[in-house]
């Protein structure tokens, strides 16, 4: 029986994907429990060739889905269709897993009952060779109701403690709420993935082990400067998240959790407003979005406004939100 499906969206990562696969396949004893799905998202380099090489070597545990380029979300969508493991998670092809902890994690998943399993993430900063661990502090050997997450959402590191990198979910449960899946040709769909998990998970457990090695330092990653380039995608995901809050069938705790997600994303979104790298056209789009938010989701509009000002006051040196944006808010220039 396959215990864990690992969806690996792959786009032009020929220099990294071997590390990703080598780490997963390091422990011979657990290979038979793995359902590794490499989704080649129209790579123009040797990624597909490498993937097929591993498929040939581990045909029982590695499968390759080859598709036209459609972005990270489309690759996860394609992977989930063929996932057969009891649990499923996503692993980016330039990241990898901790070889020592991964074995323990898979062994534990075999008998696991919880809907959602949360593991720690180690963020690897290559430029200064430092590491930062993101750990969830909830301590329990038994599954905890997802409602407890409500308490956590007020804490700052929410994104990493409950992120695409830390979450493993029952495959069937996720498929029930998957619907149209993640947005195609769109960055930041990891926020959608997290939201979908909260739509379906009723309880969770934390393993307190580092699994995910999140690699920062590869040229062309969507973090950092890439944000300005992909700000329209950020808006698309925001709109999608906002729309899910209209669904009254979803439990109340979902709205609380997703609200936190939305507020943090809004803060990042508006923070780009007076950055010099952002074009006038994109700035105008932020203003338009702001109007949309005010007219349709007044509650978030107000929360975002308070959030900007508080963050600026409490943490003036590190804040990416500009003073200009705050002035804009205070004056109510709209």
């Amino acid at each position, binding site marked *: 029986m396959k215990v864990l499906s690992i969806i690996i969206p792959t786009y032009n990562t020929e*220099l*990294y994907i071997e*590390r990703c696969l*080598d*780490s997963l396949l*390091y422990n011979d004893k657990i290979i038979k429990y793995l359902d590794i799905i490499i989704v080649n998202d129209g790579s123009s380099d040797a990624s597909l060739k490498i993937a097929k090489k591993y498929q040939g070597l581990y045909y029982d545990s590695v499968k390759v889905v080859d598709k036209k380029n459609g972005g990270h979300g489309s690759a996860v969508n394609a992977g989930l269709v063929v996932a057969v493991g009891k649990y499923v998670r996503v692993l980016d092809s330039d990241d*990898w897993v*901790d*070889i*020592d902890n991964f074995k323990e994690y898979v062994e534990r998943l075999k008998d696991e009952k919880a809907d959602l399993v949360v593991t720690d993430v*180690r963020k*690897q900063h*290559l*430029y*200064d*060779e430092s*590491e930062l661990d993101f750990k969830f502090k909830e301590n329990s050997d038994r599954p905890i109701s997802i409602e407890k997450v409500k308490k956590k959402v007020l804490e700052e590191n929410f994104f990493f403690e409950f992120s695409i990198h830390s979450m493993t979910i029952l495959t069937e449960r996720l498929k029930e709420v998957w619907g149209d899946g993640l947005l195609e040709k769109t960055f930041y769909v990891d926020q959608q993935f997290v939201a979908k998990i909260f739509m379906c998970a009723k309880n969770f457990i934390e393993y307190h082990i580092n699994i995910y*090695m999140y*690699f920062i*330092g*590869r*040229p062309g990653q969507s973090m950092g400067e890439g944000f300005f380039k992909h700000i329209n995608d950020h808006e698309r995901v925001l709109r999608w998240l906002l729309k899910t809050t209209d669904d009254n069938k979803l439990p109340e705790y979902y709205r609380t959790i997703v609200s936190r997600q939305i507020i943090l994303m809004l803060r990042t979104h508006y923070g780009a407003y007076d950055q010099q790298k952002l074009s006038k056209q994109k700035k105008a789009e932020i203003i338009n979005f702001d109007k949309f938010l005010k007219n349709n989701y007044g509650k978030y509009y107000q929360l975002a406004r308070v959030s900007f000002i508080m963050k600026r006051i409490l*943490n003036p*040196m590190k804040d990416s939100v500009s003073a200009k944006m705050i002035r804009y808010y205070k004056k109510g220039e709209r």
Partner: protein
Amino acid sequence: MKKRERGFVISWYYPPGNSSEGLVTFKLLGHSKYFYDVWTRANQWQNVWDRKSDERELVAKNVRTIENDCSSMEKWVKNGLEYFTQHRDEYDFIMSRSMPAESHELAIKIKERFPDIKWVASFGDPIVNTPYIDAITMNGENNPFRVREYLRREKLSIPRTAKLILSPVRNAKSYLWQRDKQVGEKEAKKLRTINNNVLQKADVLIYNNEYQYEHAFSDIKLKKYKNKGRILEHSFDADLYSIEQKLKNDKLTFIYVGHLDDTRNANSLFRAILHLKKKDADLDKKVSFDFYGHLSEKNKLYVLEHRLTDVIKIHEDVGYLESLKIIKSADWAILIDANFTGLVDDCIYLPAKLMDYIGARTKVFSISHVKGAGSDIIRDVGGGKVVTHNADDIYLYLSKIIYKGYSPVPYDEKKVQQYSAKEIAKKLDCIEDELMEN
């Protein structure tokens, strides 16, 4: 029969002095069809870059060395100009080789005095606009002792800020830092001037890899000189390896031969080894890591503090021929590039020792940027594994090697031969033929 042309090569480093730059020059010139006189410094150990061994055995029939006083660079340059002026008629072209940049400085002076002389300028490493030089010249750095910088790093109360503003210690540190920066800026300006003069006046510019070549002309003002550029990689000399066959070692052996310092360091490798040792108390029975040459004090202390001396052995520097024996007899040879992630995307440096590793057909464990001169070559010729400077990444592949018997794709013999000194020297000859014809 036409007389073989003779070149006047200006190279501060050259055997019998033992240094990477000098050895690269030796391997290259020794297989060329041309004659060369190498204007070099007398073999005195000046700094950490000079390994303390004498390479008297390294002699090439077509190369004569002219050693000169090296008590100061200025004197060496001045004497070089005088010597060349007296012997101008003996030479058909000149070649200058950096580092250091003073070799080019002498060539500039010769070219100014004899504008008709053909000049090949070879850059071992770029002399401007590189992270190494920026580090030395403190280029682009802000004074860390300014109050503003303290505030940028941490949130300070008003009384603490006031205390900081008035602090005589902080003010003194700030003054000294500023003074050093001015020295650095002067040095940076000098290097920029030399670089621009070389690009403008030399007939051919040699770089040792494609990344370095592109980097050298990344400034739009310098693009006009790009067509003078040629690529000539480092090489290995098959005749210098005295061991024919690899020996079977009792345990897995990793070696590093050469210079490491605070910038190019073994930090992440040592962290990975510590991680391995924590997981495996018998690690020392399975593997050894032997370092020959200079290591930073920080790295040495790390080995001692974490009781890694049973696994990591630090040895004295060895001579070049001895180092080739060590390389040949090891299972894996370690290559470490400086980690400039965040400053540059790709590694523009090609370590000369990589070629010696390849020549020995020893497997290469390379800690470098994923993309770069050395990494590309390893992937192309086979025989090695490239990992990033991340300790967990290194740990993963060391584990695979030690416990799973991981072995990289074997060397592609045909591709290896591309880097033999004979082949690279042929490329040099073509460049010089072209120079002579024009």
